[in-house]
């Protein structure tokens, strides 16, 4: 089936066994995001640390309910971003957004995105793009809040 190009094995694995799940302390900011179109919800916390003079992602913890795409994407996101500098993480997040908006025409950078390239197929099913972005948008929002109003708003505003 064509839809198997979206439901790659890696995505189904992360859906069945989500990584970094649960709400942990300490944290610097918590957000609650919802996808009103399909009922996906996520409560997400970020904990930042100082790494060589710039902020870095110490932890991303979450509690989520939703479809396989939103759950798996959130799980993959935490794997991709934990330990990175916020600057790097914003770059990865921007690249993922571009991939989602590519309508199947992208050539994703696997070095940058890691396992998140598995979501390439979502770009051909526009109704699922918001699902795939839910966790990533929640992370951006929480990180911006954690950094305060003078946060690192690099890259495109989405």
């Amino acid at each position, binding site marked *: *089936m*064509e*839809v198997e190009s*979206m*439901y790659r094995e890696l995505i*189904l694995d992360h859906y069945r066994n989500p990584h970094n799940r649960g709400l942990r302390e300490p944290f610097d900011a918590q957000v609650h995001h919802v996808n*009103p*179109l*399909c*009922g*996906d*919800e996520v409560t997400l916390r970020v904990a930042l640390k100082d790494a060589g003079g710039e902020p870095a992602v110490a932890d991303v913890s979450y509690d989520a*309910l*939703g*479809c*396989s*795409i939103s759950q798996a994407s959130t799980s993959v996101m935490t794997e991709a971003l934990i330990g990175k500098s916020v600057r790097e993480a914003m770059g990865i997040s921007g690249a993922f957004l571009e991939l989602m908006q590519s309508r199947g025409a992208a050539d994703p950078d696997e070095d940058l995105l890691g396992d998140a390239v598995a979501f390439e197929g979502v770009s051909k*099913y526009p109704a*699922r793009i918001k*699902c795939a972005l839910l966790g990533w948008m929640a992370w951006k929002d929480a990180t911006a809040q954690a950094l305060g109003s003078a946060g690192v708003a690099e890259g495109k505003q989405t």
Partner: protein
Amino acid sequence: MTSATTTGHPGPAGEITPPLDVAGIRADFPILGRAVRGGRPLIYLDSGATSHKPRQVLDAERDFYTIHNSAAHRGAHLLGEEATDAYESARARVAAFIGAAPGEVVFTKSATEALNLVAYAMSNAATAGPEAARFRVGPGDEVLVTEMEHHANLVPWQQLCQRTGATLRWFGVTPEGRLDLSGADALITDRTRVVAVTHQSNVTGTIPPVGQIAALAHARGALVVADGAQSVPHRPVDVAALGADFLAFSAHKMLGPSGIGVLWGRRELLEAMPPFVTGGSMIEVVRMEGSTFLPPPERFEAGVPAAAQAAGLAAACDYLDALGMPGVAAHEEALTAHALGALAALDGVRVLGPLTTRDRGGAVSFTVDGVHPHDVGQLLDELGIAVRANHHCAWPLHRALGVQASTRATFYVYNTHDEVDALADGVRQAQRFFAVA
């Protein structure tokens, strides 16, 4: 696709309603000929969201534009007369469809707008003349809704309370998806000013006893507003028998065009109600210092009339009455019973709401253990089956039933029993794909 069974369906008085000629009906709907994913034929089980349109409706709307197009109620010319005639004939046609007088039918943009019209009329009553007093609500007054409502018949009442200081109260639902009327005596009191209730749930198909609720409400002097978006298209509705004071419904859910809906209201109420949307068409005399308004229904129809859409809706009424609404209801009841049975036979599938067709219409919403509704919907889409997946604009109802979201199939005149079988088979395939079966 095969047509419905060749035996007729027994009606409420034991009479046999001839079955619909589903194959013939399907031939009237151009969109049913198209292919979807992977070239598969379209199996459309989302008429609860919007229905498809037969040639006859499309032709009526197009004919208005190609032959009679003009601004109704205006113009000193022939086309203006024809447009006015088309619009007012449509009003009379729609009125006849629900057993009402033409002057009691207000054309709106949609059922949602119709419900907002009543809610805003009630807050506007605070600053209107003394004849509007019966519509006023304020601190100490209560607005009674239900947990089963579509957001269109919930949020406007929440907002009315916020604007006026009135208190929102509500009937709950039972685990079986019926309205919990056990607390009715405590909920309908002398403080109740308006009761808003669905005439048929868009999630569970539940048909609450609107007449019974209306009797209790009227005994306390409260108004009753019924949401008929899912009832008027699917079974015979007669406003004289309904018991409510207002009924809202949409054209696009009953084979008609998008962009037009109806508010039916008792004449004496509409006469006393202040307007919601104001502007041209609904005025009597306009001066810079102030304006007066026309009697109903024109008072509630500001702007150039949506005459083309009204013509389409009238054609939809003709189409449905030619099929016979008892037959439409019987066809859907058979499909619903089939769907309820087929889904009940699947392990790990829970249907929300009543599990028989008693006082239950054709919306079948269900959950699948271990598979999110959006994923169920995606798999069904892959098979050409169109359903809806989320909370279907009834989020509190889902919470009350203990689920986050559901997958919903809805049936209409062009659906077949083969399509119901395809739905059940598709759900089984989704269970296998996500390795829960």
